[in-house]
C-alpha cells in the first residue's frame, strides 16, 4: 500500500483535506471536511470551515497551505467585489475562478494552494471550476481535491451521474466526504456542504455522528 505524499511537504498549518463540488440539475453542491493539521500529527482545528464565500452565489474550497489559501481568497474577494461594482452585475463564476487562477499562476513559486470554485450565474447556470497547484484552470461537472480525494476517485467515478436531483447530489457528496474522512487521517471532523441555486444559498453541516457509516465501522 503505497503512501501518497500529497500534502506532507507543506510548511506550517495545512488543510490536509477533502474537498469536492458537483453539479446537479439546477444547482451545485460544494463541500469539505473540517480538519486542519500540522504535518498529520496534530489536529490544530476540528471545526474549520474550508468553504469560503467569495460572492453572493460563488463559493470556493481551499486545499494546501492554510495561510496561502486565506491570503489568496482575501485578495480574490476584493478583486471580485470591485469587478462586480464596475460591471454593475453579479460576477460570473468563471470570473471568480479566473481571479484565483491569476493569483495562483503569477505566484506559483511561493504559493502552495489549490481551489475548487463553484457557483451559479445567469449566463451559464451552475458551474464548477478547479484551479490546481500550478495555476491550471479547468471546468468539470464534478471534481474532488485534497489529500483525502485519492481514496474516493473510484467512488466518485462510479456514483456520479449528470442531472441528479438535489437530494441525490447531497447524499452523494455526504457519502463521498464520509468515505474519504474514514480513510484519510488528515481529513475529519464535520462535513460542511453548501448548496447553490438560482434561488439562493443553503449551508448544511453534518456532524461526525450523523455521517453515513459503512460496513466496517
Amino acid at each position, binding site marked *: *500500500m503505497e503512501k501518497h505524499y500529497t500534502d506532507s511537504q507543506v510548511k506550517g498549518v495545512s488543510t490536509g483535506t477533502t474537498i469536492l463540488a458537483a453539479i446537479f440539475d439546477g444547482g451545485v453542491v460544494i463541500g469539505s471536511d473540517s480538519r486542519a493539521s500540522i504535518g498529520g500529527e496534530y489536529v490544530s482545528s476540528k471545526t474549520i470551515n474550508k468553504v469560503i464565500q467569495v460572492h453572493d452565489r460563488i463559493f470556493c474550497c481551499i486545499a494546501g497551505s492554510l495561510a496561502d489559501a486565506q491570503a489568496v481568497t482575501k485578495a480574490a474577494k476584493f478583486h471580485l467585489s470591485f469587478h462586480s461594482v464596475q460591471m454593475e452585475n453579479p460576477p460570473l463564476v468563471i470570473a471568480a475562478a479566473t481571479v484565483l487562477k491569476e493569483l495562483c499562476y503569477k505566484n506559483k513559486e511561493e504559493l502552495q494552494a489549490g481551489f475548487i470554485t463553484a457557483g451559479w450565474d445567469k449566463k451559464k447556470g451552475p458551474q464548477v471550476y478547479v484551479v490546481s497547484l500550478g495555476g491550471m484552470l479547468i471546468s468539470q461537472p*464534478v471534481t474532488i481535491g485534497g489529500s483525502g480525494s*485519492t*481514496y*474516493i476517485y*473510484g*467512488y466518485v*467515478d*462510479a456514483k456520479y451521474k449528470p442531472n441528479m436531483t438535489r437530494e441525490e447530489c447531497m447524499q452523494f457528496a455526504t457519502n463521498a466526504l464520509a468515505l474519504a474522512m474514514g480513510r484519510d487521517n488528515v481529513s475529519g471532523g464535520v462535513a460542511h456542504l453548501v448548496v447553490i441555486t438560482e434561488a439562493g444559498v443553503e449551508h448544511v453541516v453534518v456532524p461526525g455522528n450523523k455521517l453515513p457509516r459503512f460496513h*466496517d465501522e
Partner: protein
Amino acid sequence: MAAATSMMPVFGHQISPKNDLVPDWTRQEVSTGTTIMAVEYDGGVVIGADSRTTTGAYIANRVTDKLTPIHDRIFCCRSGSAADTQAIADVVTYQLGFHSIELDEPPLVETAANLFKASCYRYREELMAGILVAGWDRRKAGQVYCVPIGGMLVRQPVAVGGSGSSYIYGFMDSNYKPGMSKEQCLELTSAALTLAMERDGSSGGVVRLASISEDGVERRVILGNQLTKFSTH
C-alpha cells in the same frame, strides 16, 4: 600500445545518465505498480488483478499474470517489485509444498500467509513487496490475508493492494457488504479494478479474476474493451 588502448571500447561514457542513446526505462527497476484485490465469500474467495508491469514509463508486460498459484487452493496476488515478489512466491511455493507432503494433507491458507510474512518481515529492508494471500481450506473455508510492505500479517474479509488501491478505498468501503455471493464478489472486484485502472497510470490492461472454493479454481479474463464504462468527465 597506443593502438591497443584505443581499441578498448569506452563503455562508461556511453551509458551515462545523460546519454540519449540509452532510454530511461533501461535503468528503472521493473515494478508491478498495480491494483490487486481479494474478497471472501461464504464458501471461498474471489481474487483479481490488473495486468500491467512497468519499468519507469515503459510497459514491460501488458498482459502480466499477477495471480500466482502457491498450492491447489491457495493463490497470492503480487504488488511491488516484480523480481522480489516472484522470488518470494517461488520460495513459499517450495516451502508449502514440502510442508504439505510432510503433513500428508492440503495446507492451510493461514500457513501460506505466515510463510509469506516470515520472508517479507525478515528481509524487509531489502524487499519491496505487498502481497495478498487468498484461498480455501477445510478448516476455515475462504480466507484473505494481507501482507503489506514491512511484513505485517492481518486477515481481512476484503483487501486491496498496490498503487491503484488508494483510489478505490471509498468505492470498496461503500459497496462491500458481508454475506455477498460469489457472483456479487466477482462484480465488485471487476468494477473496483476497472475504476482503479482508469485513474492509476501504473495499472491497466486486462482484468484477471479467479475464484477459489472447495470445488477448485475458476479463472477468467475481462479484456479492455469489455470492461464496464463508468460515466467519464
